[in-house]
């Protein structure tokens, strides 16, 4: 079957095809300094809809931290990030979260473990959930693309460029 990178390039083709020749708006590039807390995503969306890039992570996942670091250090990512919302979701967060009119809860699996329903709903890929998982949503919060695994610098940049085309 198809590999993960296939999906990524697929996304680019997909985005390219659907967006036609949409270009990056030449407006002022104002980097999103910090990732958006998932809680505030819907409010932000209702004020100004933008495509969404979501990173599903856990506090014990070191690759997730590596990815977060990359998003902060990658100049292209920072530069492009004004065109979309970059949000992070802790997949083991215990707080209920609202998403598209439904409240999602933490599903406990024992005294010290469990997973958030929303992380499963958004990030389950090929039947399982691995960390980190990247999720791309369009302005209407439809999931357009998922990738489980860490992305290298080039792929991360590619992802942001594709996101801009979703505008």
């Amino acid at each position, binding site marked *: *079957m*198809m*590999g*993960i*990178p*296939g999906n*990524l*390039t*697929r996304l680019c*083709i*997909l985005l390219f*095809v659907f967006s036609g020749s949409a270009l990056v708006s030449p407006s002022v590039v104002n980097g999103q300094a910090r990732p958006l807390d998932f809680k505030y995503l819907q409010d932000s969306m209702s004020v100004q809809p933008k495509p969404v890039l979501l990173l599903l992570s856990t*506090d*014990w*996942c*070191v*690759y*997730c*931290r*590596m990815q977060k*670091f*990359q998003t902060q*250090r*990658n100049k292209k990512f920072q530069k492009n990030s004004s065109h979309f919302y970059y949000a992070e979701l802790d997949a083991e967060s*215990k707080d*209920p979260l609202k998403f598209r009119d439904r409240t999602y*809860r*933490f*599903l*406990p*699996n*024992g*005294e*010290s*473990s*469990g*997973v958030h329903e929303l992380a*499963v709903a958004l990030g*389950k890929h*090929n*039947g*399982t*959930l*691995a*960390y980190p998982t990247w999720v791309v949503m369009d302005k209407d919060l439809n999931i357009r693309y998922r*990738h*489980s*695994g*860490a*992305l*290298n*610098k*080039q*792929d991360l940049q590619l992802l942001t460029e594709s996101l801009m085309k979703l505008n």
Partner: protein
Amino acid sequence: MGKVTDTYGHPVELASVSLPQLKMGMLADSLGYYRITGVPNGHWRIQSTFTGYKSWSGHIDVSDSAAVIRDIVLEASNASLNEVVVSGTMKEVSKLESPVPVEVYTSKFFRANPTPSVFDALQNINGVRPQLNCNVCSTGDIHINGLEGPYTMILIDGMPIVSGLSTVYGLSGIPQSLIERVEIVKGPASTLYGSEAVGGLINIITKNPSTAPVLSADVFSTSWAEVNADLAAKFKVGAKAHSLIGANYFNYQNPVDNNHDGFTDITLQNRISVFNKWSFERKENRVLSMAARYVYEDRWGGQMNWNKSYRGGDQVYGESIYTKRWEYFGTYQLPVKEKITFMFSANGHDQNSVYGTTLYNADQYVGFGQLSWNKQIKRHDILAGLAYRYTYYDDNTPATRSFEEPGKNKPSHTNLPGVFVQDEISINDNNKVLLGLRYDYNSLHGSILTPRINYKWNSADKNNVLRLSFGNGYRVANVFTEDHAALTGSRDVVFASELKPETSWNGNVNFVKKIFMSNGGMIGFDATGFYTYFDNKIIANYDINPNEIVYDNLSGHAVSKGISLNVDIALPNGLKFLLGGTAMDVYSKDGGTKVRQLFTEQFTGVWNVGYAFKGLGLTVDYTGNLYGPMRLPLLSDTDPRRENSPWWSIQNIQLTKAAGEGFEIFGGVKNLLNWTPNKGNPFIIARAHDPFDKNVQFDAGGQAMVTPENPYGLTFDPSYVFGPNQGIRGFLGIRYNLYR
């Protein structure tokens, strides 16, 4: 129009299909179908591309008459770009938020060197050592930074399996495909887990039912004809109940005697264990989880011609142990507004064993219940609770003999009620303190007070974390269940006095530093210093008399101290290193003399180097351990065996290949250097040809005499053991995971 499929006939969704001369194109839909309309008549080139596949091209002739149907088969390309291999997290990390240092190992980590149980897998972790205690029966326990097994607490999804025996048996039987990760705390953990948790804590986190494989299997065999099989499945009952079920079977029935001493080199084993866990969805995310496990094991080692008809006799020497063990444990959160949780655990352990002519039959039952209340008030996260533990123990040794009525057995009943409170205070974004205090009342030994202090500092970017932990531990030893050496061989067990509980004070300093490189690489450092001071340490003395093991509380004190360093490196090209080293000094001091602890090395190293070949689905893992010299028990001055073990190393290599459709094939070589403890020793089991000392002549003082038949003046002794007596071997296995 047409359909795009791969060579297996699966649709290739979103493959692009285009007519380059006309600059027309379309993507295949989810079933692989595409349709391009409005194509003018003519002879056109058609091409299709998709990442991971070789590009395809052909020609079509379009005329007015009919739609052109052209199906496309895309061939997979080996040169698929940048297959991302770091999906899981093989690396050890420290949980950031907790003041208690938690190391996390995912199941992927353990797959680098497949083993029949999590117990064996822990040899890959720096500072954690499964120690073999018995040359013939190969039982062992886990040492964390030099602290013995009973100081380590085993939990499954945070639910404690409360039992002194759980470090050995608590880790076998959970199929590795059901394990998401294993969390390890080295040093004093929360007061929640009682005085046992001073050495450390091993928490096995099972996969969440929503993301676990529907079905999985993992089977491997070695060239020594060892077979290990794991099977696991998940299912759902109604809308709210999820269950994971798994079984593990390990079989080794092929006696091998490569060192020609007439004894089996490694112990023959037949083990089956079954695990079943349920979790229920409840209102307000309340927790209800319970699990049960059953382990049955039949193991024996001894002279090559031993069979069950010789069990317990003095004709052919054998050590044979049947173990039956069951556990039932769970967590229930009360349906009230406050967060009040009830945890329970019940287990039974039945051991029927012979060590030569020595019989040892023991039963242990433990019941445990704990009610805890958790409340967050501003910066305080308070946990308080009540606990009760009941232990029943009976065996056929003098340990449970009645003093009042000689000859009559008197099982021991221990009641251990306790109360605890702890407060985790977030001082600010960078500093956290955990204060805990626990009081237990042991019905045999009286009051036990266990304080805990943990402190954490982290830098603003959280890349540097310092943790300090301090606490004490308390242990009532049962030498028979904990120390198999007490039973094996010809040595008599002697208690010099009534054993008092052993107490220990332990302090740990831990510093974690992570360096992230902008190209996607990462380096992590994790350094720990530990110091443990023991009072009343129970010492098994082999040195007084070769025919005895004398157990006594040390009148002086004992110390275990050391430093360890872990370095993990992940490079963006797929190369990973995990390197660890621990230097420690474990000794006892009685009067002015310092005595190094037996069977304890001063240096250990561990490594794990992995590389993933991009595009091939192939992974190579090179794992190994290095051990410094250990002091070993000799029988006499004339004993020709080495007093200290040499530096030794076990190294393994493994190749894993993804075979598609959820299958994975793995194989490799274990113990590449073919190292066994025989190297440099004339023998490792003393007088293996005369295990019942029938031809040993003793002098008036009970010492074995040097005779022509017995040139070194020894008795039968299998307690000289410091490493697995199993040389080089190949292994091959297959893994299958079905996800839905």
